[in-house]
């Protein structure tokens, strides 16, 4: 009897532990219609064959936006940049304080975030170059735990970025 109960307990504990390990979701490496929408949103075509100049103009915009450069490989048209910013949301803080008072425990709320950007240029045809930018962020709460890991997909964010980039390309072209 003891052995049977022991075997069941061992089996259950192992199953529970294995079940706790998150699995790689299906489709993580598959292209879907959404991928195409995202690509359009994140890409603009510039009528120039000067890839390096376009990369320099992009660098200027990233700096305008307060990003620091982490990595670059100009021969592959790549700039990787990041910045740390406050992630405190007043409504979340109020909610956390109210809930904390109710349950008699500290309820954590988001405090900081790291925003990353990768910008890639790619020559297409003899006189055009594509620029694609992608953003993601990681958010931590005041206990230092990661609460969010996500891509940023708001179309307005990309429109604004490329508006600034077009301006920067124009300013650079006229040496301003």
């Amino acid at each position: 009897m003891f052995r049977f109960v022991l075997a069941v307990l061992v089996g259950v504990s192992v199953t529970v532990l294995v079940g706790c390990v998150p699995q790689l979701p299906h489709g993580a490496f598959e292209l879907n219609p959404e991928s195409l929408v995202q690509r359009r949103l994140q890409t603009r075509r510039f009528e120039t064959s000067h890839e390096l100049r376009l990369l320099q103009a992009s660098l200027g915009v990233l700096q305008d936006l307060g990003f620091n450069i982490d990595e670059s490989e100009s021969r592959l048209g790549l700039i990787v940049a990041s910045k740390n910013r406050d992630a405190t949301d007043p409504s979340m803080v109020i909610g956390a304080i109210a809930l904390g008072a109710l349950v008699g425990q500290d309820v954590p709320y988001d405090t900081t975030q790291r925003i990353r950007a990768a910008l890639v240029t790619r020559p297409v045809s003899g006189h055009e170059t594509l620029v694609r930018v992608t953003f993601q962020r990681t958010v931590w709460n005041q206990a230092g735990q990661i609460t969010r890991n996500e891509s940023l997909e708001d179309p307005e964010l990309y429109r604004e970025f490329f508006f600034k980039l077009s301006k920067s390309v124009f300013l650079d072209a006229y040496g301003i």
Partner: protein
Amino acid sequence: MLKRLWYALALTVALDGCVPLNQRVLDSDQSQLQLRQIQSRVFDTTERERTLRTVIATLQDLNFVIDKADLGLGTVTATKLDGYALRMTVSVYPRGERQLVVRANGQFNDQPVVDPLPYQGFFIALSRAMFLTAHSLD
């Protein structure tokens, strides 16, 4: 009786989390050759720079954000954040005079990706973008 049960349960839990450090460092629970075959494909091209640029574009299509790239060494590293962290390094190196090998290895949160299926998905997307067939490593 109950005490013995608790000991047994505690021991099971403790042993389950107790993987030797060397095994974690070397990830030696799979054959090196088998892993290389799962993670590599051969392409009939010698255009290394174009291949690396296509790897970057494919990873972006798959919602990764590029972390690093090095044309000299032939590597690209990227991370996908979608409620989880999936990190990939892709390397490109010549094989003979007419082919390139593309090798990818992934890390899902704190686990290595050893399942062949995700790599198949990646290489399908890559070969479409390259307009070339991906051959298995012999």
